């Protein structure tokens, strides 16, 4: 039969299909971009917006963080002084110990000499008695033998003394080495500690300012009440629990602060994990107007 038929609109159909896909992809790209672009500005707003809202408090906090680091910086120069003092003390101690040990050695030597003399005297006396009792030859032989024994004893004693002295010196050296290493570690720790303390202070200030920015003060607030809260902070910056340690005396203000703390989640935490670990349990004194 006749198979030749009209094939309707293959090309228009293809064009339309392409059009549909372009439309869909265009819509996707547009919508995805439309969604993914706004978040970053929002993030930036969150960070930058924090200082401006509490415009009045911020003027005070800004100077506040500066003085805080300074006391932290100041301890650094003084810290070496105690270190030096410690060093001097330790040196003195070392010297004293050395002197003591030297004296001990001298005493030991003196005692050894005395013993030797006593021994010699005894032996001499014995020898004289024997001389008297026995013949001169025998006496001479005995004297010789005695002398040899004395020499041996002397040698042994001297060796023992030397050994003791060496051991003492070794011990001294070891103690010295350990002390110096301890000192160095302490210095490093103090430097690290200073940096960490600085970071801790700045982040505490950030947390406090964030909470302050979230703070919705009650209308009937009087004066500048201070509420102290114990906050357990999770590593993600979320707040685990909030406990009122000391009330400001105004329950409305206490609850407002508690709400502000919960609203300020996630709290800004330092990137250094060692420092962040110190923020596990925070005690936060919150005042509407900071007086630092």
């Amino acid at each position, binding site marked *: *039969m*006749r198979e*030749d*038929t*009209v094939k*309707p*609109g*293959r090309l*228009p*159909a*293809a064009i*339309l*299909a*392409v059009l*549909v*896909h372009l439309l*869909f992809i265009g819509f*996707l*790209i547009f919508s*995805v*971009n439309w969604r993914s672009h706004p978040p970053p500005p929002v993030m930036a707003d969150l960070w930058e917006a924090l200082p401006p809202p509490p415009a009045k408090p911020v003027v005070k906090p800004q100077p506040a963080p500066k003085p805080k680091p300074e006391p932290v910086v100041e301890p650094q120069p003084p810290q070496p002084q105690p270190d030096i003092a410690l060093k001097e003390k330790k040196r003195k101690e070392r010297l004293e110990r050395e002197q003591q040990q030297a004296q001990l050695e001298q005493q030991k030597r003196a005692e050894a000499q005395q013993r030797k003399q006593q021994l010699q005297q005894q032996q001499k006396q014995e020898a004289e008695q024997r001389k008297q009792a026995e013949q001169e030859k025998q006496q001479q032989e005995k004297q010789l033998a005695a002398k040899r024994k004395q020499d041996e004893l002397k040698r042994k004693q001297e060796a023992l003394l030397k050994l003791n002295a060496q051991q003492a010196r070794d011990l001294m050296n070891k103690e010295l080495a350990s002390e110096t290493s301890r000192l160095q570690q302490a210095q490093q720790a103090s430097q690290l500690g200073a940096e960490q303390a600085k970071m801790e202070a700045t982040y505490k200030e950030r947390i406090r300012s964030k909470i302050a920015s979230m703070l919705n003060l009650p209308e009937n607030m009087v004066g500048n009440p201070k509420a102290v809260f114990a906050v357990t902070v999770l590593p993600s910056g979320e707040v685990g629990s909030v406990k009122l340690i000391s009330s400001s005396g105004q329950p409305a203000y206490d609850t407002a602060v508690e709400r502000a703390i919960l609203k300020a989640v996630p709290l800004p935490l330092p990137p250094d994990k060692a420092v962040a670990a110190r923020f596990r349990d925070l005690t936060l004194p919150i005042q509407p107007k900071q007086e630092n």
Partner: protein
Amino acid sequence: MLALVGNASLAVQFVMGLLLVASFMSWWYIFIKMFAIRRATRMAEAFEKEFWSGTDLQTLFKRATQDWKQAGELERIFEAGFREFGKLKGQPGMDMSAVMGGARRAMRATYQREMDRLESNLAFLATVGSVSPYVGLFGTVWGIMNAFRGLSNVVQATLANVAPGIAEALIATAMGLFAAIPAVVAYNRYTHDIDRLANRFESFMEEFSNILQRQAHKA
């Protein structure tokens, strides 16, 4: 969005490509079928109108044979039936029922052929509609597998480590659904439309054989 596609793993990209092709093909067929069915109904309506308005069967037949290529499905069925009827009727000693049977068979054959032509490629739409969600899902599962495998190297697992991978992977599912939904809708719509057309053709065939029978008796 383009970055998401570009960063996806090779398997996921392959799945996406497959789905894009499937989607394009299904849309192409959707439009082709749309034009074809629309044209078929339009032509059928026009021919039925003309047929029942009392036009002479001979002139209708003549026109149908002349522009056979442009003729609609119903016109072709009519043409095939009338041609067979004329041929058989011209032969001497032909039984009445044999003439009618021949004409009916000729119409049925044309009807079958035309229906087959109309229904062609609908199976593809059905396949795309039922399979492409699974293909997309496969791409997504694969992408998420990769995302979590990458997570095993990280000490502290955060959402930021997994989210891009999952977003990449989910695009595959989105594409699968994008291909499947129109295909399923179009398939259901077109099978319904073609069923209606088939009913129309069949009822026309019955009516036309009645007319032919009357004419045969008349002669």
